[in-house]
């Protein structure tokens, strides 16, 4: 793969993955090794690439590569807490959780407000498969760092794993409050509410799916969600005749949008997927009427 791509393209691809926090560790490692052959061309970016390669190496269990990246960073930044964190992460990847915890507790003694280190303590619990402890630690962290979006997202994922949907929904509510224009958070919140079940949750789900579609009309999951939620509400025993009619109308609109998009995306060689979509819509609409 490295032979087929130029050094500049490789460097740009790594930068893109770094910025969007993509997790493609095997490819990152390959491209990183290629890009690091030309140190001078990178300039100051070389240290960020070393860190990226280190984390990718830990993700694939290549401890040797991670160690050499950490050594390079340590030589440049001998007192850096960020490098010490990488050393802790290396211990975690090797399964030496107690040693990793010691490293982190040392760093926290120097600076108890170091958010990155506190988050690694949560990651240690996750790595030990102690999800309830991870949740407790994360909640303690969020009491001090309420604006940390990543932490709220992590907490919501942990709650979903434990099937505590109302608590997961609360986390997404915090995210929506601080990012009201992000269609993905509205969609995720709606999915959690939909999974919770019950008429009230389903109505909230439908509203948030609709909001996600309003923010990004190409959000396919939100369109599907809107269709499913409206269909469920239309076919439920509770609800007035007017609300049933409205829900049928919303479902019909969502299904039209989906069919339109599937037709646009259709490729001649592959089996038309729109027919599976149409069958799904037909079967659900029978239950709604």
């Amino acid at each position, binding site marked *: 793969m490295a032979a087929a791509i130029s050094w500049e393209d490789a460097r740009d691809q790594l930068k893109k993955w770094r910025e*969007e*926090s*993509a*997790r493609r*560790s*095997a490819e990152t490692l390959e491209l990183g090794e290629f890009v690091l052959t030309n140190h001078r061309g990178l300039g100051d970016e070389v240290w960020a690439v070393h860190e990226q390669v280190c*984390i990718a190496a*830990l*993700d*694939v*269990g*290549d*401890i*040797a590569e991670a160690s050499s990246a950490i050594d390079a960073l340590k030589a440049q930044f001998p007192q850096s807490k960020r490098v010490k964190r990488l050393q802790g*992460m290396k211990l*975690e*990847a*090797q*399964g030496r959780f107690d040693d990793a915890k010691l490293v982190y507790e040392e760093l926290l003694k120097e600076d108890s407000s170091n958010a*990155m280190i506190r*988050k*690694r303590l*949560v*990651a240690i619990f*996750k*790595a030990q498969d102690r999800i309830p402890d991870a949740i407790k630690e994360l909640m303690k962290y969020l009491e001090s760092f309420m604006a940390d979006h*990543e*932490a709220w*997202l*992590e907490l919501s*994922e942990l709650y979903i794993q434990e099937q505590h949907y109302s608590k997961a929904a609360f986390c997404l509510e915090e995210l929506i409050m601080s990012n009201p*224009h*992000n*269609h*993905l958070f509205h969609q*995720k919140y709606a999915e959690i509410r939909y999974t919770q079940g019950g008429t009230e949750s389903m109505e909230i789900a439908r509203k948030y799916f609709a909001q996600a579609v309003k*923010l*990004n009309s*190409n959000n396919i999951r939100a369109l599907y969600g809107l269709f499913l939620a409206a269909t469920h509400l239309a076919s439920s025993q509770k609800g007035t005749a007017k609300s049933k009619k409205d829900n049928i109308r919303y479902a019909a609109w969502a299904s039209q949008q989906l069919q339109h998009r599937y037709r646009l995306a259709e490729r001649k060689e592959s089996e038309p997927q729109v027919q599976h979509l149409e069958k799904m819509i037909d079967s659900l609409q029978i239950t709604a009427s």
Partner: protein
Amino acid sequence: MATFSGFILAVGFLGLAHAGYSAAQHRTYLRLTEQEFTRLPIDIVCQGLVSLLITIYGVLNIAGQFRGIKAMADMEKKSFDTVGNRPSFFMFRHRGQAMFGLNPTGNKNVETLEPAT
């Protein structure tokens, strides 16, 4: 392209500077000849406006990619595949360690990987 835009930008700035200097010179001249200042001569105004347009053109080309004006226009292309990643919480004890042939102790001998419970 970048150097051409830089050249255009430089020309624009020089034009603006020259127009400003000319305007100042004009007012000094009027003060010396004890005439009233009503407005700037039309050529200085034109030079100023044309230089402004040239400068704007140069800046637009140098500034780089524009982002959509809607609040989250760039979110439309994103999915939870990337947005949902939480790098600070990455944990490494997953099948990637088995898959890529090296077990967590760095030993290439994969038989030492203990079975799952």
